[in-house]
């Protein structure tokens, strides 16, 4: 860049201008984005308030322990609940000693809100922790991932048998489902946003309602329309279709939300430069939301992999490897977990938990992948992405300058 002159806020040149060389001014694209604006009001963070919480927590826990373990008035399993109730009571009393009634109510409600958040987070941690703890034993054996259940009896040890057949089943079924959902879902989402009209509104309403389609109903539908009419047997393809029916509305809806974030003036800029509608969609709209669309696809995949009820009705159950999704039963992971857990044999139940833990692990990986691809919020670029965009834009500068010079040179010749 060759910016030498002083210029004021609006970009008007105020310094001495050299008459001979034409110059281009660029905004400073390589500047780091500034820090986010601080919120202006930040109530309730004084040291006194923090100490009151800590003191009340200690007092509540002491009271809980005293009443349950100490005196034995209440069974020990209730310790946490009793402590929590005493904490809320003591904390409210502490605030009441120093503040007005409205402040007491404010703190009380804040405690309730935080408690709700902690309960939800705690449940998530419990669910993940419990399934991984119960399923850790079979996961330690390599044959769990390299064998199917052929010849595995109820008394076989954990060093025999595995879930390779279910893994293959899940991969094939989700592959087929994605092959249908991806083009159809993205096309429809683009139709809803870019073409629009009265019919698009109808489609959007129906799709939104279908995101809550009960999963077992999707299974029944495929059972009635495909298994009973066409294939006359349960197989992997029917299961893939059932997953498709469930994934399609989820993908359309999230892609629709992402596409809505494209600013209208970007489209208008493209149209004003003379591009047609298709050119604007292909060169402006889709590149703008590429990462958001990828996130939508990955999250829909994560939901599709975990669906159990539809495949229960359509895939059939087998413990044997079946590489052909179009013939014979083919069990995917969630169904394998369900069937194994319902067995009365402890080793089978352990295998079921391990299958569920593995399934959860896959979903976690997909979820992290989606966050990594799409950033925190769909349609918003991260700092690194902004820098890369700026760098790409700077690469165009020499070309633009060259065109400008050539143009001036030709004019001078004439």
């Amino acid at each position, binding site marked *: 860049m060759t910016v030498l002159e002083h210029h004021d806020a609006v970009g008007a040149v105020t310094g001495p201008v050299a008459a001979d060389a034409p110059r281009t001014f660029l905004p400073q694209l390589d500047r780091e984005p500034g820090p986010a604006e601080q*919120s*202006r009001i930040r109530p309730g963070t004084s040291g006194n308030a923090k100490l009151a919480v800590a003191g009340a927590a200690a007092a509540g826990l002491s009271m809980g322990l005293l009443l349950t373990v100490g005196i034995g008035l209440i*069974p020990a399993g209730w310790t946490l609940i009793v402590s929590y109730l005493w904490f809320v009571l003591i904390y409210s009393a502490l605030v009441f000693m120093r503040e007005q009634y409205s*402040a007491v109510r*404010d703190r009380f*409600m*804040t405690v309730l*809100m935080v*408690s*709700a*958040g902690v*309960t*939800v*987070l705690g449940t*998530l941690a419990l*669910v*993940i922790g*419990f*399934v991984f703890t119960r399923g850790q034993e079979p996961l330690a054996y390599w044959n769990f991932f390299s064998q199917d259940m052929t010849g595995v009896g109820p008394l076989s040890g954990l060093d025999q048998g595995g879930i390779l057949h279910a893994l293959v089943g899940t991969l094939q079924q989700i592959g087929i489902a994605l092959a249908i959902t991806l083009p*159809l*879902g993205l096309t429809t989402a683009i*139709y809803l*946003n870019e*073409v629009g009209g009265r019919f*698009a509104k109808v489609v959007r309403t*129906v799709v*939104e*309602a279908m995101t*809550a*389609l*009960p*999963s*077992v*109903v*999707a299974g*029944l*539908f495929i059972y009635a*329309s495909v298994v*009973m009419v066409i294939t006359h047997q349960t197989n992997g393809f029917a299961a893939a279709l059932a997953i498709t*029916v469930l994934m399609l*509305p989820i993908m359309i809806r999230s892609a629709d939300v992402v596409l809505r974030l494209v600013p209208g*003036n970007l*489209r208008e800029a493209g149209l004003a430069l003379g591009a047609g*509608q*298709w*050119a604007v969609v292909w060169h402006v709209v889709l590149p703008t939301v590429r990462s958001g669309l990828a996130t939508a696809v990955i999250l829909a995949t994560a939901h599709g992999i*975990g*669906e*159990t*009820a539809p495949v*229960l*009705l359509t895939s059939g159950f087998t413990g044997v490897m079946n590489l052909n999704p179009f013939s014979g039963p083919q069990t995917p992971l*969630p169904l394998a*977990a*369900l069937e194994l857990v319902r067995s009365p044999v402890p080793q089978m139940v352990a295998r079921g*938990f391990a299958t569920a833990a593995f*399934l*959860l692990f896959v*979903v976690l990986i997909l979820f992290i992948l989606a966050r990594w691809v799409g950033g*925190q919020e769909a349609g918003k670029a991260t700092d690194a992405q902004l820098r890369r965009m700026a760098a790409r834009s700077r690469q165009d500068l020499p070309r633009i300058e060259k065109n400008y010079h050539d143009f001036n040179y030709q004019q001078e010749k004439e």
Partner: protein
Amino acid sequence: MSTFASATLTPERPADEADLAKPRTLRNTYTGSDHAFRGITFTGGIIVLAIMLLVGAFLASNGIQAVNEVGLGKFLTTANWAPESNDFGIAAVLLGTVQIAAVALLVAMPLALGTSLFITEVAGGWLRKVLTSMVDLLAAVPSVVFGLWGAYMLQPNIVDFSKWISVWFGWIPLFQVDGVDPASPLRDTVPFTASTFIAGLVVAMMIVPIQTSIMTESFRRAPVGEREGAFALGATRWGMIRTVVLPFGKGGIIGGTMLGLGRALGETIAIYLIISPVFEIKFHILEKGANSIAAMIALKYSESNEFAMSALMAAGFSLFLMTMVVNFTASAIIAKSRSGADSEG
């Protein structure tokens, strides 16, 4: 979108130049690729709409055979499910479905409301991002995993609480449990397992994420000016929430709760793993034995002949209708509360 609509431009001109004062029409000209693009995406929309409408059509056409056999009135009022002896109906399972969903909603709604207020109003910076991610992650946990957690971890730990409720509040018919002697010193918790209450608790944890994300979205839209106005008038944070955030987010609260209800009605595998199915009309939510339409379908499909399958299709269709009504209403409420909030950037 309106971007592509044709517009009319009326330039201001002196009246005597009448021929020039005609409005100039600006027309869109689509090229061949534009027409192909519009055609292909339109086809996609039609295919999707057709699939979604076919779901209802197939269930209805397959289920009508069984319903005709016994008559609609008997189908709606019979509690038993025995298609082989022509004695079946959805009265018990429908009631069970509604009971489980009601328990789930009663637990999930305050949790979701508190969590979303925590995310939008209390937590800040990184904590808010982490919380939002965790709620989204909870939504992605497969239902079979939730079912396993509910059946093998929650159930053994919650039965004592069930017993406590029934001992102290058993005089309310809803919490009554038959066949239990509260004075007995034995820890007999079997009558409290596999109940509507426990199934409802697990379903509650599964619908918290969708409710939370809808509520969070609507609370974020509460205008900053009004928030700061409330603070400037001396409101505490809760005072501000009560007078600004909650009134502005009312549509989101109602809509999100109803979306959660739609999910709760259709939940299958988690309920299937927990309950022990009974086909009778009962209101004792703490007692062993419960049922729901979705769980019944998952339970009965394998032992069904063609006619019994038709009966299951009819039950599935009634579930389909119920969730669609709930969901359409929820979408309408959310869309109404959102209108005018969006603007072009």
